[in-house]
């Protein structure tokens, strides 16, 4: 119990004192997570809506299982893949993104994208199939159909956002490999937790875990308020 109790007092102490290295780590965690999330949403929602609406898409029998597989991509494999692409010997080595936040955002986006695509697709498919047919017969463009369908499916789409956010803010394998866990440069909450555990600072590690959960809760609380407001509209 000693370590557990100390973890909570440590977490409180770090927050109360606004520990500078903690602030830096939290800021980078949010920066990387939110950047990856926004990119994944900008690309993933339209793609997911298109696949969900195009029920006669050729190759659909292959595309859908591929998307589902992507939803379960092991983050460490994504990290390894991104590492090799961004390495000096890799095709994009010239960018110099290895061991930088930019590289971490690339890896997190790859992890989040299939989740956004897959869940958006499922949400869109849940909408009454007669809606697009009616709209098209009334002369709506495909873009307008997609927009209205997404609006109908908004609760499911918000679930896609929440799932992708949860997957990447809690992810450790890929950001460790691609970012390198460099203090003051690429250290995020999850990699800091791994480091403090390895050092044997179990209480501090758990304190950081408590802070990570707190941030995830606050963000999800905001998402949920958004979901409720949309549902009521």
């Amino acid at each position, binding site marked *: 119990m000693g370590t557990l109790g100390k973890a909570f007092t440590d977490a409180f102490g770090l927050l109360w004192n606004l520990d500078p290295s903690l602030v830096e780590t939290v800021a980078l965690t949010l920066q990387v997570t939110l950047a990856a999330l926004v990119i994944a949403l900008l690309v993933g929602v339209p793609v997911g809506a298109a696949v969900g609406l195009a029920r006669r898409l050729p190759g659909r029998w292959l595309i859908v299982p591929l998307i589902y597989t992507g939803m379960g991509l092991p983050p460490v494999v994504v990290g390894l893949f991104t590492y090799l692409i961004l390495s*000096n010997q890799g095709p994009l080595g010239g960018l110099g993104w290895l061991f930088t936040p930019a590289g971490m955002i690339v890896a997190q986006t790859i992890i989040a994208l299939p989740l956004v695509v897959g869940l958006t697709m499922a949400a869109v498919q849940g909408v009454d199939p007669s809606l697009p047919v009616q709209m098209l017969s009334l002369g709506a463009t495909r873009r307008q159909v997609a927009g209205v369908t997404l609006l109908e499916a908004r609760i499911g789409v918000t679930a896609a956002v929440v799932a992708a956010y949860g997957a990447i803010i809690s992810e450790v394998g890929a950001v460790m490999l691609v970012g390198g*866990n*460099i*203090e003051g440069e690429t*250290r995020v909450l999850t990699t800091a937790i791994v*480091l403090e*555990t390895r*050092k*044997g600072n*179990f209480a501090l590690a758990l304190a950081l875990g408590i802070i990570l959960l707190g941030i995830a809760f606050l963000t999800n609380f905001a998402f949920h308020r958004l979901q409720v407001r949309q549902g009521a509209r």
Partner: protein
Amino acid sequence: MRAGSIIFVALVILAASCSRGGSGDVQVLRLATTTSTNDSGLLDALLPDFEAGNDARVDVVAVGTGQAIALGEAGDADVILVHARAREDAFVAEGHGTDRSDVMYNDFVIVGPSDDPAKIDGVPFAADAFAAIAAAGAVFASRGDDSGTHTKERSLWEAAGVVVDADLPWYKSLGQGMGSTLNYAEETGAYTLTDRGTFLSQSAGLPNLRILVGGSSIESNVDPALLNPYGVIPVDPDKGGIAVELAGAFVAWLTSVETQERIGEFGVDAFGQPLFYPDSEAWRNR
């Protein structure tokens, strides 16, 4: 009914997973050690002999020295095998372990990029080389993980009269294992401090790095500060649940002349030199 049978199957799987290994009354020794002894393959080569001789299984937890010591302090390991002399002595002095025995040593070397911007190639003493790296502002990759290697690195900076922290643009505190730190140095052209064994076993994948301080083998390393001794400590029996007899047998076996001889032979075939040099009391007095 169907939900009931699913729960039943789940419970059976859970119960089956709880019996560790499941081979009857085999005793288990929990060994907390550093990544260097495990990643080099030394333990894989040595342990089957101990397991067969004592009808036991050794569960190796390979972590940083800091965590290995913490595992011992919490009584979550029966014996620890680490390399950070001052912290080992503190571990015994605080009553967490019974006594420390010498096991073996290897040495640290400073590796860096071939173009050597800080011009440390051939500098005999590590502290001087560190001072030159700091003066040149050349990028240095630190383990930053409180490991035995990191502990040694900090003492060398102190000896060099350099105060390092993460605010220095050239000092990168990674908080990762030796293998990852070497990969970082390879990719970014950084200097780093490494044990010779890990560097040798990984050097095929590190074409840009070479040994700049420490020489081509331990015999040509003239800086005593770069020696890296390993010690073994049985955990205090009073912590409860400690495999006391097995831990004692392990220490006796590890320091015996026969095992020491095998430690000295390990790696010679693959690297042309041993990765660890035997150094137990029994070996020195043989």
